[in-house]
């Protein structure tokens, strides 16, 4: 069972190399990538990471899902750019905001989304739980993560079943129903889901208590080593990060704050020039 895609598996050989990698390597790569994306301001470097991470996601064979997500990203960016132009009519400093500046947050989201989806969609829950055990995380972290991983697929399945049950009762679940009857549609969705989530939480707590999870002496673990494919992927990913940081290109600040800052700098430069 896969974490976010229910019980469906992709049997294509091409898609399996990501799934075969050690979960610890994938999570660590995602962590270092996220950290880099906070500070990296070079659009060329960000685009480089975006392309590489797209290859990883592409290898899973979820082309339709990729298309929808990229389309959403583009639409959101276009919306943001339109708003920037609109605001520029009323706030003069916004005229300084370049397309590259509005693009930067989306260039950051692109590799992050790719990698997060790659990790979650290529992860078998059972292996993820075992890997979490091997990571020797404190119980405070391990237990909630284990619970979330174990029950996310079940919860997604419940949502699908709820949709089916509503269809059987002749209640359509679409955007027009949400707009025309917002209260009714939300109640139909939310009430069973909350009840189910509460019951699931109770069942889980009871199952865990009966197994004495979180009590007693705790788990004794055997050491497991990385394989060469894991090490190669990790080294490759870290090298890609180094390249992204050192690739030639300009540093672009993003957001309205940067426009105001740019305006201040321009003013200061012109003032000093006049003096």
């Amino acid at each position, binding site marked *: 069972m896969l974490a976010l895609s229910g019980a469906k598996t992709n049997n294509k050989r091409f898609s399996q190399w990501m799934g075969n990698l050690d979960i610890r390597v994938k999570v660590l790569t995602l962590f270092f990538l996220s950290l880099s994306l906070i500070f990296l301001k070079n659009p060329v470097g960000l685009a480089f990471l975006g392309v590489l991470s797209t290859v990883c996601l592409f290898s899973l064979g979820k082309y339709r899902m990729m298309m929808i997500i990229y389309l959403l990203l583009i639409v959101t960016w276009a919306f943001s750019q339109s708003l920037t132009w609109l605001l520029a009519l009323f706030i003069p400093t916004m005229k300084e905001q370049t397309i590259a500046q509005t693009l930067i947050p989306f260039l950051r989201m692109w590799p992050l989304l790719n990698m997060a989806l790659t990790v979650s969609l290529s992860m078998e829950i059972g292996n993820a739980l075992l890997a979490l055990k091997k990571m020797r995380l404190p119980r405070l972290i391990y237990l909630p993560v284990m619970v979330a991983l174990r029950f996310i697929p079940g919860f997604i399945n419940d949502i699908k079943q709820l949709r089916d049950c509503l269809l059987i009762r002749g209640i359509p679940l679409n955007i027009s129903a949400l707009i025309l009857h917002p209260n009714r549609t939300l109640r*139909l969705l939310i009430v069973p889901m909350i009840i189910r989530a509460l019951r699931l939480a109770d069942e889980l707590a*009871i*199952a865990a208590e009966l197994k004495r999870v979180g009590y007693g002496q705790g788990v*004794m673990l055997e050491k497991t080593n990385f394989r060469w494919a894991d090490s190669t992927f990790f080294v490759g990913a870290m090298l890609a990060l180094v390249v992204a940081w050192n690739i030639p290109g300009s540093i672009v600040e993003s957001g309205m704050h940067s426009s105001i800052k740019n305006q201040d700098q321009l003013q200061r430069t012109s003032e000093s020039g006049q003096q």
Partner: protein
Amino acid sequence: MINLENISYSYPFQSTKALTNINLQIKKGEAILVTGRSGCGKSTLGRLINGLIPTYFAGSLSGDMHIAGIDRKRHSFHDLTGLVGSLFQDPEQQFLSTTVDDELRTALEWRGYSSRQIDSALNPIIEQLGLQNKLGSSLFTLSEGEKQKVALASILALKPQILMLDEPTANLDIDSTRELLSILTSLKQEGMTIVIFDHRLYWLRALIDKFYLMDDGTISESGSFSDLEQLRTKFGLRSTQQAHLSVPQLTIGQMTQPGGLYFDALSFGYSGQPPLFNNFSGGLPQGKVIAICGQNGRGKTTLARLSMGLEKPISGNISLHGAIQSAKNRLQRGSLVLQNTELQLYMRSVTEELQSAVSEPDKKININATLEQFRMAGLQDRHPQSLSGGQRQRLVIACALQKKPEVLILDEPTSGLDGHNMEMIGQHVRAEAERGAAVALITHDHELINNCCDYVWTLQEEV
């Protein structure tokens, strides 16, 4: 082994007592059956013995209770978890892992056992329950019987003194039930105390030493298994005899009659899995009640989903009364009741729920009469989600019937229902068929099949 004296209990915010003055003595090595009508207090008594009351269900508890030699007032819930093993009706509820091997090891790992100690504890149990070939399997791919074996193995690995089973055969086919009985018999011979809470009685004849019959929160009768037969009618119990199918198999001629639902050369399989139906033809004749049988995982529920348009076939047609119908049309003209009743109830009261199920919104129905028919009188204003499992199941079926469907399919409609309620569901199903609907029941329950079905349709391994 279990000693309850003058136990009374009421759930939080409830004025009526769920258990009243319960006295119960169970000796070591005994196999005990606790039975009674739906809502009589069986589950509450079970929760008391395995310690969930008062740890998880606080409420008001009085009386003395000794379980496996320990006084519940002086010991915590965790002291009990090693002594009482509980097998739930749906074993999936008690799984914490995703693979068989990991699930079996989890509880022992958390007790600090080394890998070698775990192997030596588990190996004999794995062998006893025949799970050797399943260790690497995902828990989600197992049949219901296999899931139950895995849950049982993980309990037995902890060497409990008492084994409690809650409606263990509710989702099992006949073969799996037989296999469970054989396992329980050998555990009893090894000296384990077994307490079973169940409506289905026939399979327990050779196992149990004594029964306790509950009624309205008290133990009203007790005795040996043979005494149960004379109490059946009075207390609405299920049959004590194994029901042999007396209903004929559905023939191709009956399937191809012009009225009803028909699958023509249907092919379907879930992504990445072998096809469930390959050029499959068959149907549900109009005005008849058909029992759809077959092993767990054969595709019975999938066939129901295909009928209602919830799954799209790879190829083939589905027709209703001789005309090919789109998925949307089939959904509008049919009703399907699935097993997950919690997800099928949305409104704020039972009355609203029933009214919302009527296909013509302006048409008012007689709520009181409907509830009376489904033995739910007085529950008009209750929130549907606050009802018991059996009551929810009856309400969902009642809602499905309000639509006056042309095709009605019920998936395991009697799991957790007592004899009276099973008969009542049977009567409603027959009435629907007489009205002209094509009715199908997906069930392993031979008693129900004999009670109300015209034909049995067994889905074979290769179609």
